[in-house]
């Protein structure tokens, strides 16, 4: 079921994966240097999932993300400068420094936010799909969620309601095998596909390290949802290379598991195909250097950014400031 992708398509997918990988590697170093406040959850190793799925989407489609959401944000096309400025806690950030890594959002491109609550994005995506349906936008919504969210009750509510209302909603599971610090087999007694079957929702499982496979699987699924076929499940089997958070020593993982994860590098797999298609290595390196230059420019701009405006934040608790003291 692989669609034939031309060289340009493949390069474009690869480029976005490089953007995510290099951005997160840069963030990892910035975090180690103390330049990133708070927590940082990286999706290195999982890049093919957001890139493959978002490549099947249109600009007006919407995605709700997770605490491991940098890939979703970048694949959906959020502004790179605003992205880094947000994670460094600057006024110029997408959220004016009020959200940080775990709340990166850009409504202009349909990115409804990373989310600090496991499973929290699921009903948001469902509501977004409802808005697409009622307003006849022709759009679809994607709920990205990890395997850890499969044990959240709200997933089961959402599968049920999305099926009842035939919503244009994609349940995009990034199954990396780890619910924070615990392996999937200790967290979830069912199978997502079987769960979908119970609710009458078609489910497809795909190699989430293979960006072409993800995109090839996502295309018909998105078309089905867009055409009134109701919700769909796309379970992407993927690998988390880093800890739950940066600084997590991952003592709960054995070396074999980590080596196995790294052996399925979506960038290496994609690059091999591009090379096999006859694209010269120096063109690929040029593309990578251009991405790295964009990232460095974004980082430098973010470093020079302003501290967030406290008065503006205080005035933004409500859409219009209200009179009186509220605490």
């Amino acid at each position, binding site marked *: 079921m692989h669609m034939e992708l031309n060289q340009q398509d493949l390069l474009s997918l690869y480029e976005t994966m490089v953007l995510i990988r290099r951005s997160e590697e840069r963030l990892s170093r910035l975090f180690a240097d103390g330049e990133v406040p708070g927590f940082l959850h990286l999706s290195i190793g999982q890049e093919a999932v957001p890139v493959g799925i978002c490549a099947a989407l249109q600009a007006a489609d*919407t995605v*709700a993300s997770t605490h491991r959401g940098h890939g979703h944000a970048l694949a959906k096309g959020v502004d790179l400068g605003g992205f880094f400025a947000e994670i460094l806690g600057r006024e110029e*950030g*997408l*959220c*004016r*420094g*009020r*959200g940080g890594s775990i*709340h990166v*959002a*850009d*409504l*202009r491109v349909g990115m*409804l*936010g990373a*989310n*600090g*609550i496991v499973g*929290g994005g*699921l*009903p*948001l*995506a*469902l*509501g*977004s*799909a*409802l*808005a*697409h349906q*009622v*307003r006849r936008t022709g759009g679809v*919504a994607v709920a990205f969620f990890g395997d850890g969210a499969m044990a959240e*009750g*709200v997933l089961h*509510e*959402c599968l*049920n*309601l999305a099926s*009842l*209302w035939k919503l244009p909603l994609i349940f995009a599971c990034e199954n990396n095998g780890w619910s924070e610090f615990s392996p999937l087999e200790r967290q979830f007694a069912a199978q997502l596909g079987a769960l979908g079957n119970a609710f009458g929702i078609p489910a497809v499982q795909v190699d989430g390290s293979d960006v072409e496979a993800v995109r090839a699987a996502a295309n018909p699924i998105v078309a089905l949802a867009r055409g009134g076929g109701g919700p769909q499940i796309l379970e992407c089997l993927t690998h988390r290379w880093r800890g739950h958070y940066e600084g997590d020593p991952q003592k709960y993982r054995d070396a074999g598991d980590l080596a196995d994860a790294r052996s399925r590098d979506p960038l290496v797999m994609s690059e091999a195909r591009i090379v096999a298609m006859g694209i010269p290595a120096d063109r690929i390196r040029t593309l990578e250097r251009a991405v790295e230059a964009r990232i460095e420019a974004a980082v430098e701009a973010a470093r020079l950014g302003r501290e967030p405006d406290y008065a503006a*934040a205080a005035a*933004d*608790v*409500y*859409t*219009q400031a*209200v*009179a*009186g*003291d*509220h*605490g």
Partner: protein
Amino acid sequence: MRPQPPMYIPRLWQATMAETRYGMAINRALADAMQADASVILFGEDVAAPGGPFAVTRGLLAKFGPERVRDTPISEATIAGAAVGAALGGLKPVVEIMFMDFVTLAMDALVNQAAKAHFMFGGQCSVPMVVRTPHGGGLNAGPQHSQCLEAWFAHVPGLKVVVPSNPADAYALLRAAIADPDPVVFVENKTLYSSKGELADAPQPVAIGSARIAQSGSDATIVAYGASVAAALKAAATLAAEGIAAEVIDLRSIQPWDERAVLESVAKTRRLIVAHEAVTAFGVGAEIAARISELAFGGLAAPVLRVGADFMPVPFARSLERECLPGEADIMAAVRRSLDWKPNARIKP
């Protein structure tokens, strides 16, 4: 317990035009808002075909069709969360949580998502949604169907909370809540659904955050909201016969609340009693008492007194529930206590 709809249908449909019942005023506000704005949609448990557990949404499915008026499964977390997503997607959802006690199941969507999206995303978006939910006891519905939990939401930056006491305010505040760009928790009192009041053909708007002087007086101020306003007015009437002129302020909005209106009244009376059906401890009355004490300590003739439910789950049996919940007599006692206050310089721990 989830009641079958017919059990609780109040006599909504027997009122005249001039005298409208509280539940019917809400119904009319929903219908008028949906008529005026195609982006307003309703969903919740049994709100469409059954017409709502208290018959408040009756007739709206027939009028506006199944796309805009939807029954949901019993999935409170998703009802509230979907409202957030729908609001971010350009709709103005009005959702119902059948009993306020069930908001416990919807707290993530309300507290972590709805309340924060505007702020947390740097002002990129607003979340124009309304959660309608009935609170309150008096129906012997027991500990899980009787609570007044509005203080929880007033404590969360980003949420607005309104609690109308009469049909005209219910209409106007619901229209205001639906028009508001921010998430609003619209609290209805179950015992008020069949209460009657005037509702004009073209009702006056009411701004969220504005209180109303329900009765003027100069001796003491009673601040109340929701069903406690009627109790406060009855208490004031009884006290008036004894020559005590109590001023009753119907707060109408809990968050934001009308500090200025309360201060103006207290400047006149120098005595303040806050009455609500919710548990006294850590409640709305505690916040108002603290704030007014901070602003007006030197001018007060007595400490701010609170009247609320005893600190226990709302019990089931008639006698137990009656004793637990505050009423007219408790408010009168508090007013008298305020008037009789003797300053005591010594603090006795």
